């Protein structure tokens, strides 16, 4: 029998605002523990939450980029549970009236089919602190860091529209791409600013009813997501095949080292979070004009950009994808295009080729590198004008990348300019012909391959700076002239 896997995701994304969501503390990753804290994010008596408008704006931005409806009226609720790193013993979150509802994201499945993954909601909430456990038993202890406490977080909840672990991975990559594009989050899984819980069930293919759902918590890498979901899909499939479907819904964890999910607790025993409206925060009322203002400020999204690259620049789907999927790369590419009058494809090749190679090598993003679009455009003009050869250009480019100097300066400093002076080259050509009577004779005997050798000698002598076309032409002419 064939089985179908059904997956829904809950993605937590940390917003990269300057300040925390309900107090004025700086939102920084990686600082000394407990250095970005105040009575507010430590949950001291009497301290009240004051909503950071930027966090609301970022949540709305995400909502708009994901086609959600932005609720004109939403509420903050308290989600209550005891945990040492949750300073108030409740998390300010949104319950049945979230800021964004509906929406969806289009993905292309591994089978090449286009498909919309519907979203249920996006809501705004606060992050808890961090607990570091050390040792165990009588000597064990835990340390708490509240720098993270109160960072703004959005939770994006999908409908159960994903049908395989591979689809889940594609969806998450796409989501990450968009959220980075609109600059609301760094989406760094390794730093915890993008993390995911997955709900998965398996049913006989063609069945309309869902199977029993398992929730897999805290999947912290793309690898973990795919491995855990694949493992769980297989496990559930085997249970169905054996005629022993799971008896209850469970929360399960992922053991990376053993490569398997494990039972944590039954779903029915889930904590009763006792949600109720936070009396310290008035309802969140969003003016339509503000939403429109935010919408107008949204950048062109990756999908639209890629379509435009193909349409307007005639780039292949693959090239458009490579250039369009990171906002910084796309902006670098477009800025260079505006400054360069030659072929689009030339710019595209340099950005996807040498530039991408060096960025990758140095683990930098376009903005972090020293290379400016002006410099690349200037270098391309120099190639077109015959001032440097394509081969020399690679040297120039590398130098620009590491030093940030303009190409003209590099060419002058290193004496890399192409020699296109006929009178200078013809003297050299004659010398080479005189030094190599053998190949000259071969050429005259009809072995035209010998010409290549002679060109190589000229290039060697000029350290590659001679204009190869001109050398070719001059050699032929001089060979003709020989008695």
């Amino acid at each position, binding site marked *: 029998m064939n089985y179908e896997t059904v997956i829904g995701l809950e993605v937590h994304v940390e917003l990269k605002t300057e300040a925390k969501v309900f107090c004025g503390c700086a939102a920084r990753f990686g600082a000394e523990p407990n250095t970005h804290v105040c*009575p507010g994010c*430590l*949950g*001291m*008596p*009497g*301290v*009240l*939450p*004051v*909503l950071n408008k930027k966090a609301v704006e970022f949540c709305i931005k995400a909502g708009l980029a994901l086609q959600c409806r932005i609720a004109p009226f939403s509420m903050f609720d*308290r989600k*209550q549970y*005891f945990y*040492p790193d949750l*300073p*108030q*013993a*409740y998390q300010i979150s949104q319950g049945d009236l979230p800021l964004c509802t509906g929406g969806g994201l289009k993905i292309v499945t591994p089978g090449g089919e286009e498909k919309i993954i519907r979203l249920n909601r996006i809501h705004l909430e606060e992050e808890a602190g961090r607990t570091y456990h050390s040792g165990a038993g009588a000597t064990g202890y*835990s340390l*708490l860091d509240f720098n993270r406490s109160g960072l703004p977080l959005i939770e994006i909840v999908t409908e159960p529209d994903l049908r395989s672990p591979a689809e889940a991975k594609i969806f998450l990559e796409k989501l990450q791409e968009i959220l980075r594009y609109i600059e609301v989050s760094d989406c760094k899984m390794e730093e915890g600013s993008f993390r995911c819980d997955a709900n998965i069930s398996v049913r006989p293919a063609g069945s309309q009813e869902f199977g029993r759902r398992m929730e897999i918590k805290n999947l912290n890498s793309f690898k973990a997501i795919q491995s855990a979901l694949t493992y769980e899909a297989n496990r559930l499939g085997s249970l169905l095949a054996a005629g022993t479907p799971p008896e209850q819904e469970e929360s399960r964890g992922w053991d990376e080292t053993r490569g398997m999910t494990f039972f944590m607790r039954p779903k029915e025993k889930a904590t*009763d979070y*006792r*949600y*109720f409206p936070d*009396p*310290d*925060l*008035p309802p969140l009322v969003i003016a339509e004009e503000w939403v429109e203002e935010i919408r107008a400020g949204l950048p062109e999204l990756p999908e639209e950009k890629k379509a435009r690259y193909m349409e307007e620049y005639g780039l292949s789907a693959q090239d458009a994808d490579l250039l369009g999927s990171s906002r910084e790369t796309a902006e670098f590419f477009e800025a260079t295009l505006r400054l360069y009058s030659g072929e689009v494809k030339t710019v595209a090749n340099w950005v996807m080729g040498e530039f991408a190679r060096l960025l990758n090598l140095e683990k930098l993003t376009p903005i972090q590198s020293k290379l400016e679009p002006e410099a690349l455009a200037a270098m391309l003009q120099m190639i077109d004008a015959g001032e440097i050869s394509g081969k020399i250009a690679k040297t120039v480019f590398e130098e620009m990348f590491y030093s940030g100097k303009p190409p003209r300066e590099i060419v002058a400093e290193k004496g890399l300019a192409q020699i296109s002076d006929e009178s200078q080259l013809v003297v050299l050509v004659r010398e080479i012909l005189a030094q190599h009577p053998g190949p000259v004779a071969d050429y005259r005997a009809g072995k035209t391959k010998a010409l290549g050798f002679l060109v190589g000698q000229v290039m060697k002598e000029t350290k590659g700076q001679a204009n190869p076309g001109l050398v070719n032409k001059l050699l032929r002419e001089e060979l003709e002239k020989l008695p």
Partner: protein
Amino acid sequence: MELSTLSLKELGNALRKKAVSAREITGAFLERIKRFNPDLNAFVTVAEEQALAAANEADLRLARGERVTPLTGIPVAVADTICTKGIKTTCASRILENFIPPYDATVVSRLQEAGAVVIGKTNSDEFGAGTTTGYSAFGPVCNPWDKNREPGGDGGAVAVAAGLAPLAISFDTGGNLRRAAAFCGVAGLKPAYGSVSRFGLAALAPSLEQIGPLARQVEDLALLYQVLAGPDPLDATSLPAGAPGRSGQEFTGTAATGRPGLRIGLPREYFAGEELQAEVKDLVLAATGILTEKDGEQVDLSLPSTGYALAAHILLAAAEASSSLARYDGVRYGYRSPEAADIDLLYKKTRTEGFGREAKRRILLGTLVLSAECYGDYYLNAQKVRTLVIREFTEAFTKCDLILTPVTRELPGRAGEEKSPLRQYQDESYTVAANLAGLSGLSVPCGLVDGLPVGVQLLAPAGREDLLFQVARTLEKAVGRFSSPFLRG
């Protein structure tokens, strides 16, 4: 000069005329606290050092001829649920026995900016959960009119009535401040919701409570209120400047002018029950007569939801308390049980040992009210009642300018008297509606029965504190002020 009986104005005049220094005033009240507080237990902490420093600072200002306010150099007692930077803030709870906040409540900053002297921190029920101060972890407070009687739920009213401080600020969650004002024979105001910042008030029931002033005279009450009120960016529920319901800062009209054509609403439900002691009822109705005898009008009102208001208040106050008090877990500050072997035991033991009976009762009740099973029946229905109460008052205020009711059903009870929880909650039958509906409620003395003070409650819509002060002042003029035995030499 006997400073303890002077009004705010008189103290201010004496200061400006250099008849007395701020240090002498503070010193005199500190003396009285030393002498009488061991009996009364109104203060949990006396901030002698900080108070004298602040008084010296006020003297310097006066000497340099710098700008002064009516509060410059005047001692103010502050409820111990209101955070004071560098001064222990216990909330009358063992769980915060040694807690010293690193920040000031907004109201405390405002007092300090006005040059006032925070003289000490006053006692109450633990986090204000109670009606008699019997649930303070540091022992009950005595009524200065009769030490064998309970004073209502607030030590600040006792401090003012006994002349241990000329002024006090406290908080009102269901009537504790107003009830204590009535039982101690002083004036007390629960401002309309959002008028005064709650930043720095350790929360019990955030949607219900407000910080308010206590004084022996209505005029002093109004002056103190002006300092406390105003928008605060640190409190999202504080009304912005210019919002409907946000009254202006100036109350020039506290003079005792009988307001022509004043319409006073008398809600039937507040006078009908047998539980209202006859002598109390008579005094309250007499006050109504005084206020309307010249040119006023008594309007007969009905507020049908009154019977449900108390139940709704009990449920909502408990629900919010269970959430507000959850942060006291022994992890970051406050009391921490020394014997806990793991985190669950740490929570259990810390909270079991740290909280008293009534706080625990509300935590348990509130946890039940918010549980998935009960939320709809209890929490949501209570919120619906709250909406009805608000509607009925809005409607009532189209027919009258203010509403007059008793503050309490009866005279102060015997100290240490055991009451069932329900009976205890019923102490606030007449006061909870103002908290539910966010109204301003002022309690002002209207007479004595058996040598014990009785108060009358005046209710007005948000933003009409000015009217409350005016009318209360008229009543005060007519019935006179009442000095507790501590103020009679």
